[in-house]
């Protein structure tokens, strides 16, 4: 262990910053910095820009177009992108199904799907949770029955993030109804435009529709869209969920952007003539969170630098980071809504769904719209990806064998 400055990392960080300065469109960055979730258009447009530079799939192997960065470099890249307000790229494609395809897929699947993800042509959405299978994912019921060279899919998925933006859907289906829970599940790739697919957006509390239900009514999926072996889908899912938790669990870059944003807004917003940041009680609360964000960020760095080891939480660290990161994100977004004062209570429409509104000025300061959407989205963060109660079960079981 030592903390001598690392000039290679510093240089890389500067390279990323220079790229962002040159290539990230200002309006896109402004939308990214607002709390509105990234829409399909920004996600794919930014993915294209990154692809031109060869940076669009940071953790993919070089043979599939990855830049061969170290884990530390990927982390620096993520952080700089976030802080600059770059759109979130299509996690479903780049982060989740992409690695599953290049690890478990056929040569044909790799050739067919990976370029579209890498180059920002296709938007992928996940189909895992069902109304009766949330944190207890393995109890899912959506079925796929073999019929010639097709599977016929029937059932329903829910909590499909960005469902209304999706071109393709990767989903878990039950192919063996008699097998025990985890056995008998397969992993399919499904074109959302297939007949029989209905995407119904859910009304989210703050008025946006980034979550959806997806209904499958005798949807025919060609057999070549099965990933890996039939009934082995659960093992690919575990691989994917591990990636999800390890790479996205704590969302440390997002936490840092919240801090940055709070400081910015609290320097502007006033109570009478006093900027909020000068209030000792407010500043102390912010300071506590900043210290905690640094500790989370250091924990992520420890995992990146040397994987799982008992001194950093061992196999439980993914759950630890997911639980604590999301809870901190909730406190930070609470504060963001709090500091905009009266405008923190206003409803603002979602410009990702209604891009026509982008040019209309909303009432209130330019940073107010989107904060409430962010807060509501973060309320879901302690629920999705395995509720935090489940994460704590995992920690207790993993570390103590309870």
């Amino acid at each position, binding site marked *: 262990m030592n903390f001598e400055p690392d000039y290679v990392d510093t240089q890389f960080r500067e390279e990323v910053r220079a790229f962002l300065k040159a290539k990230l469109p200002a309006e896109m960055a402004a939308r990214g910095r607002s709390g509105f979730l990234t829409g399909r258009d920004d996600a794919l447009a930014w993915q294209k820009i990154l692809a031109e530079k060869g940076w669009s799939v940071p953790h993919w192997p070089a043979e599939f177009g990855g830049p061969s960065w170290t884990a530390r470099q990927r982390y620096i890249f993520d952080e700089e992108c976030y802080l600059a307000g770059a759109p979130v790229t299509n996690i479903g494609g780049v982060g989740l199904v992409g690695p599953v395809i290049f690890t478990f897929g056929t040569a044909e699947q790799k050739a067919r799907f990976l370029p579209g993800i890498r180059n920002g042509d296709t938007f992928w959405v996940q189909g895992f949770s069902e109304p009766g299978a949330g944190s207890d994912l393995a*109890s899912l019921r959506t079925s796929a029955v073999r019929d010639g060279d097709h599977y016929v899919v029937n059932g329903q998925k829910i909590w499909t993030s960005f469902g209304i933006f999706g071109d393709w859907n990767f989903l878990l289906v039950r192919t063996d109804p008699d097998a025990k829970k985890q056995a008998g599940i397969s992993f399919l790739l499904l074109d959302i435009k297939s007949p029989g697919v209905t995407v119904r957006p859910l009304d989210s509390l703050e008025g946006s529709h980034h*979550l959806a239900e997806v209904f499958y009514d005798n949807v025919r999926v060609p057999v070549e869209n099965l990933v890996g072996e039939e009934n082995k889908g659960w093992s690919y899912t575990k691989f994917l969920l591990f990636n999800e938790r390890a790479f996205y669990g704590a969302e440390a870059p997002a936490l840092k952007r919240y801090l940055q944003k709070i400081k910015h807004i609290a320097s502007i917003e006033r109570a009478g003539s006093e900027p909020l940041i000068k209030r000792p009680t407010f500043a102390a609360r912010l300071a506590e969170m900043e210290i905690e964000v640094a500790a989370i960020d250091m924990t992520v760095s420890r995992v990146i630098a040397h994987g799982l080891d008992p001194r950093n939480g061992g196999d439980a660290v993914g759950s630890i980071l997911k639980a604590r990161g999301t809870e901190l994100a909730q406190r930070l977004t609470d504060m963001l809504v*709090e500091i905009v004062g*009266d405008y923190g209570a206003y409803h603002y429409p979602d410009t990702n769904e209604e891009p026509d509104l982008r040019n209309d000025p909303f009432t209130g300061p330019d940073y107010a719209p989107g904060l409430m959407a962010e807060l509501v989205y973060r*309320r879901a963060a302690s*629920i999705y990806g395995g509720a935090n109660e489940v994460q704590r079960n995992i920690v207790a079981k993993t570390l103590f064998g309870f």
Partner: protein
Amino acid sequence: MELQLSDEQKLILESAERFASEKYTFADRRSRVTRGETFNRDTWRQLADLGWFGIGVPEEAGGFGASTIENTLIAEALAKAQALEPYTMCAVLPARILAACPEVECAQAALAALIAGEQVFALAYSETISRGDPAAITTRASKTADGWAISGRKTLVVGGDVADQVLVTALDAETSALHLFLVDGSAKGISREGDKLVDWTSGLDLVFDGVQVTEGERLASGDDALAIIRAALDDAAVVLCAEAVGAIEGAIEVTAPYIKERHQYGVSLSSFQVLQHRMADMAMELVLARSAVMCALHALSNAEPVERSARVAGCKAYVTRIGKWATSQGIQLHGGYGITEEYSVGQYYKRLLVIDALLGRQDFQLGRYTEWMTAQLPAA
């Protein structure tokens, strides 16, 4: 002092609960939200007809006697039923202000119209820098030949989209004294920006651009005006806290059966000890929140203005904090469904977020209490 509800109070509570649960079904609310209706005049009139707008107003001012206690009972029941109509902010609050101006003719007429539910009133006192302090404003009133011209922006004006008349504060352009005016809602120079609040209730900006009012529409000025407004805001803050109590209770009552019915891993969610304890803590917060409202009611009856405002601020800081926590846990226990509009639990949480924003947020309210508390200590 008597801490139990009197028979009359029990009747009021029961009739409020009955009316609210019949009137404000969740399905009806969803359909109003979908068509963007923040305020329904017929419903407003029904609330008035029940006598609820005059209930906390002294008889000599045209009200029905009783006190803020009765307002809190009604507000609690309405909040539990997720009423969209802003009872606290558009009935209780302006009635308090109007009743405190017995010498002003137009105020008396207005109060009668308010109590009868014939006209809708809004208070436009807050600005971005106010944070709950009615003295921290920048809106200006300039003397004209026959009255005043008001210019400035008021934020978070509940009822601002529908109000027939608006109570507006402004600083005298010359003396910087604070004036309180009663302005016609359709007066020339008033524009509206914004749409509604995140809990789908009424609230937006009112922008005043040289709005003309007569001298007769000036209700009060200077320290008198501030004292009237502060007293009314204190009353309204306590009633808002009672809304929070209703919302916490509502969140508990929809969540407990939900986790009993819902199964995961083959067992009822309510069999998990962690969720049992979560609900136990929510129940504890409910009991303490109701007690905190009673502490504030005690202060309204017994304390001098400075202490009264401090204790009300303390109550609001506390009730908002625990209320946001308790209702957010209602969402958590509902899982993904909790963050959708299809289940009612999230509406309680959003109501708490709005209650926090109205009349000054947590950090500032706690600051007000803290300042008063430390000022009470003998110098060491």
